[in-house]
């Protein structure tokens, strides 16, 4: 008499035996080719990620062994770190203003560059070019241009009669808007625009033709055909845009190093400072884990909200 478990095990073994040599070989090569990725995934992502989770519960300065301190780093973050909440707020401000402007700007630009006009390839190249400039180089360039006292922009503004032009990177009120502008300059015509262009070119002409026959003008076609069918692309760009903006670091690091007076001290910079400048690696790991959870939570919320407004053509 055989038990059910034995019977099932026998079936599995039999199924394996049925594998032909070719299928086994295919199986082997499949895993073989996956190996580099898996090694990278576990060795460079999962492994360090788990290590940093452990380190977030320790006091660790790289030079001496981590010392377990429980949740103290997390308690410190929420209760004793004067820079934590303001830096989180600044990060959301940067993303909250920069991402919608970027997504809308890229979409409008893509719609314009999707028109059948002469020289459109030239314009597409022209608008794409800023995104090819390395970030650090573009930040340095903009710092020169936006120099409050001697920069070209403010010199022009003065000549136009603006007696007190903005202190772009020197006035705390202007520092984040200046960084947002820099990001828009490099980002509007970049990858987001290309993705929008791809999305636009996936919209069937028949829908525009039908709308035209129904009497829709250009704006109405955009409103009722283009935008609804672009919602998956808008969603995709928004999710990636928010993730990217929340992690903003290099521009603030190069342009202002968190200043003036902490005005651009974003959370990513705060993490970097603690990790690589102050050598509070355990605390930096705690900050990073909290930040990662925030980003994942935001992404899940967006995924859930997307069911209400994202329209997939053909579904």
């Amino acid at each position: 008499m055989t038990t059910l478990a034995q019977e099932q095990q026998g079936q599995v073994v039999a199924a394996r035996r049925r594998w032909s040599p070719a299928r086994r070989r295919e199986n082997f090569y499949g895993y073989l080719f996956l190996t580099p990725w898996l090694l990278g995934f576990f060795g460079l992502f999962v492994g360090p990620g788990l290590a940093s989770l452990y380190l977030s519960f320790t006091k660790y300065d790289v030079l001496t062994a981590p010392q377990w301190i429980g949740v103290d780093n997390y308690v410190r973050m929420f209760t004793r770190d004067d820079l934590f909440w303001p830096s989180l707020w600044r990060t959301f401000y940067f993303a909250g203003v920069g991402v919608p402007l970027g997504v809308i700007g890229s979409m409008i630009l893509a719609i314009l560059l999707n028109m059948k006009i002469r020289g459109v390839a030239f314009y597409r190249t022209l608008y794409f070019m800023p995104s090819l400039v390395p970030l650090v180089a573009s930040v340095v360039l903009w710092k020169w241009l936006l120099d409050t006292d001697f920069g070209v922009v403010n010199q022009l503004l003065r000549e136009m009669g603006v007696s007190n032009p903005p202190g772009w990177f020197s006035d705390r009120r202007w520092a984040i808007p200046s960084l947002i502008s820099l990001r828009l300059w490099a980002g509007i015509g970049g990858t987001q625009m290309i993705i929008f262009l791809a999305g636009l070119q996936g919209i069937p002409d028949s829908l525009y033709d039908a709308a035209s026959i129904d009497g829709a003008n250009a704006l109405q076609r955009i409103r009722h055909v283009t935008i609804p069918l672009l919602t998956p692309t808008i969603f995709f760009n928004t999710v990636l845009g928010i993730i990217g903006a929340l992690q903003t670091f290099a521009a603030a690091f190069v342009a202002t190093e968190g200043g003036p007076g902490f005005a651009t001290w974003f959370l990513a910079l705060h993490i970097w400072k603690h990790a690589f400048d102050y050598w509070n690696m355990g605390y930096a790991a705690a900050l990073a884990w909290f930040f990662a959870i925030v980003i994942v939570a935001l992404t899940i919320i967006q995924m859930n909200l997307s069911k209400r407004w994202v329209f997939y053509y053909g579904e």
Partner: protein
Amino acid sequence: MMAKSLSRRGFLQLSGALAASGVLAACAAPVGAPATGGASAGTGQVNLIWDTFRGPGTGWNEERIETFKERYPNVNIEFRPLTGSSQQDNYGKMYAMHAAGDLGDIIAFDPSHFHFWRAIDKKIIMPIDDLVEADGTDLSQWYDQFMVLQYHQGKLYGLPSWGWAGFDTLVTNAVHFDEAGIALPEPTAHDTSMDTVGEWARSFYREGERFGLTIGYSEASIVVLCRIFNSDLINEDGTRCLLLDDPNAQTALRWVYDLAVVDRVLPAPGSVENFPAAQLDGRITMNMGGSLNVRNYHRDIKDETVGRAWQILFPTREDGRFPSQIRGGTWNILNGCKHPTEAYQFLLHITSTDGCYSFNLVAGQGAFVRPDVMQKLIEGNPIHEWFLPNLENGIPAHAPANSRGREYTDAVAQWSTLLFDPTQPVDFEKGLEDLHKNIQAVLDMEPA
């Protein structure tokens, strides 16, 4: 050939086990075994590794190795340039290299970058007193004030590399003074009052065109400003901020506040992208800097109708000292180095008269650490004579006792920026209190 198929679960378990073992290995306490070179068996050759961010790309390091090799043919030195985007980035790399057991034999953890004491506490660098004694090295060949920086708790840990008197001067464009018909003080005199400097800052200012005075709000300048007014930013022990305790320190910062916030004749923090470049363009009359800035300004001037280099020194303090902050670097030997004697000889070689001289002229560093080198520099360019008084009568830098150097400099820079920001002014008393509180908070932290 495959004997049996590998299940997906089995494969993932295997990969997971490999990754987990990697993680555990990474989490293990660093062994700290140095990467120090060894002697090749039977050849008598000694191998040393030199890790530094000072000099790469200039040819100085290679020249030093080559000339050393002529004297010590059995010693091979491998030069590994550290090329982080900023000097401070390289310390991170060096700590990581040490944790990985891959840090070289000859290294530098500079006192004035606040890494020196930390490197000693973490046993990264070794004391060299025995080596000095065995060699019979005459330590008086370096200025005493730069040698003092090399000691900690009575032990000597290095020999001087770079060094200067900090932000002890006003790098001055003499053309503006000539145009205004104002006689410039002697470049080595300390008889210009701060009232006069303030008056000049106001009178040379032209809105949108020129600043009479510029000050970068960093620890380097704030300390010297306090010292000008017979005070200091922190006490000598590095445990207490003096701003709220010492009226003289408050006078110093009030002097800046009046110019920056009340009269608005100083650039707002961060508004001028590059002070030296703006001064070369004739847009700044006096820029608070150091001797190296004077030398560079003098060197970089292209049009003498736009700029001519001068310096104005700050007034002598009540104690007779010249307001300054003696800052300097070091060359160290890795703790655990297998060939400390050879490494020490190399230290002597790069800090010798020739080594130091070429460190200035070839590597482009400000290494005013040896009297004989200063004389040679003066012979080559008399402007170096201007720097002697403050080198010889300067005041040493004070560092946080807890080695929280970067937190300290960040706190000073960011909170003094808030105090001196004319775009969103704060009351002087409130700004001063915030600055003091945040500096003290750093000094009160546990040791790094």
